[in-house]
């Protein structure tokens, strides 16, 4: 369904993925990891370490209340739509920022984000505006006339997949993190573990044609205890049991699901041997869902030299953003957590001397309706479309807004329901920036060759600017 002539390789490889790639081969790969690691370490030239960290705000973050216009006309539009039901943040509480590209207009960050505001002002944090899944750029008139749009707009599960796969035309079996790993694996020769690590379980973002994620649990589980096999002694019969355990994993691989379970278990066994230490971090991380996940990411980064990693992609996730109701309190709690965890994480990368080699970015299901649902303390919002996202790190050209122009010529949509950027009547803003462009900019910095862009992002040809400029040149 993505059949376009210049995407032959993608299609070819997709078909291969659809063909249940030979089981035994895969298993052999995993088994050979440590040997490969030793060999490659001797010959690989130095490649500078780089890592991408995806923070998925699960449930659909209402970014309309995270990045808010703070100049008279903009704030008045915002307040007109949200104040009557009690969802508008008072202007005095917003944390002001002045992004140069917005013509000198003042914007404001959510009051729970003091540290992110500081990072913005230090040039370490950027905002990418109005990002969402698209088949191609589309106007309100075109949308209402039935122009091509992502499948199942406004549904959680589908929109989540579209952000994670950067493909909005069909349900892709691979995600953009996985495909990026596929295309940059040569930069990671000798790596002892998978390039991709998820601290939040398996999902399609992490899966490529040849790449599968390592899944580990969050801190406070020590890194050397995230994957262990318990109960074995040292006597002969114990060794025989272990031998049998390992041997059984190589049997019956002609059964597809048995093989899949075997491969994943074998991978866990291999990695459990590699993760033999529990590095100590400089910064104390908050004891929260996100803080504990990012602490584990930071530990794996600290262990990067021993693991011989030159490229890493991490996936962490925080839930609770599906704020159909009680949004004000809920979002404040969640973003306080995000602010504190990101601050700790950034400081830790500084301490590790890799602040300019680690780029952290947010994704979410979708933005939420500008028009609230409910009122009073129970006020919330429903599912919508394009939203604003943060990118953080020393290699980010921070302190500014990025994206593609909306109908008003800026990166920000016109905040009017039924207005020129609304898909319908409730303020479901039509994205001006495609997921492909957001992900493409990050991927280019990470090392994705230009020639591989159509493979990693099969729909890229529909979006001319695949580099939005928020990353320093690689």
């Amino acid at each position, binding site marked *: 369904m993505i059949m376009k002539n210049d995407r032959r390789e993608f299609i070819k490889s997709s078909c*291969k993925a*659809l*063909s*249940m*790639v*030979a089981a*035994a*081969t895969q298993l052999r790969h995993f088994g050979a990891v440590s040997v490969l690691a030793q060999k490659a370490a001797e010959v690989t030239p130095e490649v500078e370490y780089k890592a991408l960290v995806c923070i998925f705000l699960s449930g659909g973050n209402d970014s309309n209340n995270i990045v808010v216009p703070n100049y008279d006309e903009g704030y008045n539009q915002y307040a007109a739509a949200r104040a009557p039901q009690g969802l508008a943040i008072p202007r005095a509480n917003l944390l002001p920022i002045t992004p140069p590209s917005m013509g000198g207009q003042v914007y404001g960050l959510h009051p729970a984000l003091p540290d992110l505001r500081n990072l913005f002002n230090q040039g370490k944090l950027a905002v990418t505006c109005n990002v969402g899944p698209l088949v191609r750029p589309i106007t309100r008139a075109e949308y209402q006339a039935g122009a091509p749009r992502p*499948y*199942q707009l406004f*549904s*959680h599960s589908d929109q989540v997949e579209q952000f994670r796969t950067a493909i909005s035309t069909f*349900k892709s*079996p691979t995600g953009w993190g996985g495909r990026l790993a596929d295309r940059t694996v040569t930069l990671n020769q000798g790596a002892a573990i998978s390039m991709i690590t998820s601290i939040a*379980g*398996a*999902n399609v973002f992490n*899966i490529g044609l040849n790449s*599968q994620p*390592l*899944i580990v*649990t969050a801190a406070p589980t020590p890194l050397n205890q*995230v*994957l*262990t*096999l318990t*109960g074995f002694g040292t006597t*002969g*019969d*114990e060794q*025989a*049991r272990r*031998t*049998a*355990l390992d*041997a*059984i994993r190589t*049997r*019956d691989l*002609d*059964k*597809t*699901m*048995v093989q*899949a*379970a075997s*491969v*994943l*278990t074998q*991978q866990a*066994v291999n990695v*459990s041997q590699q993760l033999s230490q529990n590095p100590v971090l400089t910064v104390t991380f908050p004891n929260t869902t996100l803080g504990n996940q990012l602490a584990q990411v930071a530990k794996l980064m600290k262990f990067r030299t021993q693991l011989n990693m030159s490229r890493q992609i991490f996936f962490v996730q925080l*839930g609770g953003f*599906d704020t*159909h*109701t009680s949004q004000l309190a809920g979002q404040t709690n969640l973003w306080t957590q995000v602010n504190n965890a990101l601050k700790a994480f950034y400081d830790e990368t500084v301490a590790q001397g890799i602040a300019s080699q680690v780029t952290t970015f947010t994704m979410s299901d979708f933005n939420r309706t500008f028009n609230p*649902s*409910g*009122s009073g303390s129970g006020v919330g919002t429903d*599912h919508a479309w394009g939203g604003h996202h943060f990118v953080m790190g020393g290699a980010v050209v921070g302190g500014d807004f990025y994206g593609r122009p909306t109908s008003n010529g800026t990166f920000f949509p016109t905040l009017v329901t039924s207005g020129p950027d609304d898909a319908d009547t409730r303020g479901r803003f039509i994205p001006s920036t495609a997921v492909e462009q957001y992900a493409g900019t990050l991927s280019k910095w990470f090392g994705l060759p230009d020639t591989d862009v159509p493979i990693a992002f099969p729909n890229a040809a529909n979006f001319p600017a695949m580099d939005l400029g928020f990353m320093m040149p690689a």
Partner: protein
Amino acid sequence: MSVLSSARRRLRLLTFIGASVFLASQALFVQAALPDDAPVIVSESGSTRALVAMNTRARTGPSFRVVPVGGRVTFYVTNLDLLKGEGASAFRADVQDVNSNRYPLEVLSLQATAERPWVYALTVQLHGAIGDVGDALVRVTWRGMSSNRVRISIGHEGGKIQDDPDSTPTPMPTAPPTHSQAELVGLPWTGDRVRFMMQAGFGVNPVLEARLRRISYSTWIEEQAEEKRDVNGDIRYSTFAYPPFKPTRTLPPGECNGTTGMNDPADPDPLCFRNLYSMFPVQNWFYREALYGEDQQLRRRVSWALSQIFVVGGRETEQSGRMIEYIKILDGHAFGNFRFLLRDVTLSPAMGNYLDMARSTRQNPNENYAREILQLFSVGVDLLNQDGTPQLTPEGNRIPSYSQSTVDNFTKVFTGWTFCSGPECTNRAEGVLNYIDPMAVSPANHDNTEKVLFNGEIVPAGQTPDQDLRQALDNIFHHPNVGPFVSKLLIQQLVTSNPTPAYVGRVAAKFNNNGAGIRGDLKAVVRAILLDPEARGNVKTDPDYGHLREPVLFATNILKPYNPTAQAAAPASCGGLSDGILNIATLPLDQDVYYPPSVFNYYPMDYIIPGTNLAGPEFGIFSTGTALKRPNFVNQMAPPNSAAGVGGIPINITAPIGTNINYAPCGTRIDLSRLQNLVSADPNGSTLIDTLDRELLHGSMSPAMRNDISVAVQTVSAANPLKRARTAFYLVATSPQFQVQR
């Protein structure tokens, strides 16, 4: 129509060509390595090369055998016993090249041959991506059974592919296949009964196995579906008492006197809050039902499956007492009618809270419930054929079942309902959210304007909220997607992740009409799922068959056959039974009972196993992070490297505040003495391994795996039968082969 008739013409042509190369019939065909109920692809006489027919002019010579890249080819399949209407959609086919790449083939048609009605011409389309691979091995699967694999040539003839080791010629049979009736009854079908208990319940009960042999599956299903009464004569859907409903905790002097909730040191009993107001009691109740609730096994299993479709999670519901009121709805309708299930779920206060219908009003509508009832509970996002496959446009695109406008209209229907608090509410209590009575409506908050539903059906303006609701639920219920959508989800929960369209179609047909003209009869649906030929059989040989055991099934399936009880030192109040505190074992495996992360359940039902084209929903929570926790659980229950008597979940009544997730008044242990006793009389451990093979793998253990276990068992001193038993148990229960229920 013209496409169809040209396809028929082509088929006749193919049949003719096929017949012309049959030549003289061969002797009775014999395929010793294949189970009796497996399909057989006919080979050329005296060879393991497929007898093929193609739409080609070449009738002789090598080129006749060569299938062009991206071409079509017809095989001949026999040993089939087709149900009425069973055709191409009951079959899958694949081909494997010399590099072990296995590609699916699209099955285009299946037609009985004119000359031998017991031989069927099966035509497949090769995907161009397979390429010019030369000789390759082709197979068909049917009802979970793999055929023999025979050679075909793609692009050119020749290559180094090896036949399967036990491959023998399967020439054209001269007479219809016959089956010995003796094989269809009695002991040889132990394997199927064990599989059945794993599909219809939470694992093997050796007593039930013997009983099933006498009374049949059908009678057992009827028994399970029968209403049971408690001592007061009330219907009960639970073997053990449901945990009580506790109204929302009040501040002191309430039942728990502390003010900070969980584990408050100010409470005389620091576990008070956890034991009364958290999800803890309902999770323990669930495991006790699964382990011991023999008269409600099937209801419990179906209710558990429904709870993963109609998801309400403890994250928002918070309390056992609230959750149990919701589970009662699922229990009560597990064998009832889907229409009433839909009604009671919609008006359930737990669901109303979970998906916000309880807060959706005319003035401030909330579309959460409207969207999810359509997407997850009934219709699904794409229009479906009756066999569950998506309908496609001529360009090959899926067709959305509804739009945002549909969601908006249903949203209006569902406005105005909220927690029942008026005098008509039987279970209302001052200051307590009513989680027992169905939600009630405030007409002033209901949007009574006109709405447009599926199929253009109009809800006229001015109806009562109740009329609106009935009409809308009827409208959803009669959407043609519901049968195939719900049937496939239940099949995936109970039997196999990738049912054939034919299987889904047979079950959906029962959903659409139970035989007595009634739509939505879930008992008929469950019967159809469990008694379908694709579910039944001693061993399934289709390589893609089955599903990964989710953590709950993994844990219960390994415990149930081995007499799970309380720890020996448990107080008499435990009655010798486990306290059901097993969630601490499945939680690290990412399955927190009745506490899924979101309405999308623990795992997505369309999760694709990486590197394959197969759905494997449960693989969504099987990863490097959880894989080793399964063997660690087995080790905890019966550690081979520990002294006799050690193992299981210990009694723990003194857990410190804050870590009392380990609190367990009775504990849980299993008893392997039955296996241990087999060891003494059996120096090489073969009876021990046979028993484990039968009880955990329903006889499907391969010789290679068996040998691995045998070597390990015999390394253990015969003077230590307990360790031998535990070693064998560990190796079977931890095996990837056991993780997959096939």
